């Protein structure tokens, strides 16, 4: 952008309402501060200084009512599954789910003999992006955020 376009008195930007809203939404994806097992450690790593997910407008919110995305970072036990479902239901629409790590994708190391583990969080809530790894590196989670941004960019909320 040239300086006179960004200048308050001068510039005009023409865009579609839908694109503007999508741009605003994808630039401020607020996840719920919620982590359930070892993967959450990598999620925290992604959020703080070295990887700094803040750059993408991603910073965690303490309430489901303020969250746009829930990152399922860890092992989903049956006991936790109910809580996850409730948290998801408390989030306002439009809402998104990132399944981070093998556990939440498919049960991970508890695939066999894991009587207490839900074999994939998608049995409880719908998932938008899956991240593979045990645990996935912070880069992989950043990749998932970028994927989610692409998805949001294509959405039609109005019209």
């Amino acid at each position, binding site marked *: 952008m040239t300086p006179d376009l960004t200048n308050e008195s001068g510039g005009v930007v023409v865009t579609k309402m839908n694109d503007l809203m999508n741009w605003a939404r994808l630039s401020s994806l607020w996840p719920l501060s919620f982590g359930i097992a070892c993967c959450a450690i990598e999620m925290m790593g992604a959020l703080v200084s070295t990887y700094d997910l803040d750059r993408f407008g991603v910073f965690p919110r303490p309430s489901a009512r303020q969250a746009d995305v829930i990152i399922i970072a860890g092992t989903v036990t*049956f*006991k936790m*599954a*109910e809580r996850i479902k409730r948290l998801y239901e408390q989030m306002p629409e439009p809402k998104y789910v990132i399944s981070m790590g093998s556990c939440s994708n498919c*049960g991970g190391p508890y695939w066999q003999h894991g*009587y*207490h583990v*839900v*074999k994939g969080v998608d*049995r*409880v809530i719908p998932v938008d992006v899956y991240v593979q790894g045990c645990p996935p590196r912070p880069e992989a989670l950043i990749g998932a955020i970028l994927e989610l941004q692409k998805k949001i960019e294509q959405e039609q909320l109005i019209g």
Partner: protein
Amino acid sequence: MSFDDIKLLLTNKFGESVITGEEYTGMQPALLIDPDRIAEVCLELRDNPKTYFDFLSCLTGIDYGIDSGRFGVVYNLSSIPYHLQLTLKVSKENNRNEEELPSFPSVTSVYRTADWHEREAFDLVGIFFEGHPDLRRILLPDDWEGYPLRKDYKTAEYYKGIKID
């Protein structure tokens, strides 16, 4: 105090029948104790000035398998002042019927630590502890059916409508 001294101390106090056997195969020797008297034995070992087993390091519930039909509990005691370790074991036959859980006296009155350990053994192995103040499941949801660390446990197909596999 050596292992033999501890044995002597117990038999002097409670009689020969309190010790039902010994095991030397494990990492440390274990005393097999008459299940009905385990709480008294623990209390004596804790309070006797020669032993002061003041710390319950661990309490484990064990299913000895379908063939033997036995359930047991292992107590790992430590004496902080004397740097001593002692393993006690109790076991009982049981018909594996979930209506009649194998039952042992609770040692919560001796060691407060035993509270959650006994709840865990109850939750996962299905061992009942008489006199426990609050014997509820501790890890699994309250409405869970069965005791998953039993050798004959079969995973259910569904839990609250979610497929288990």
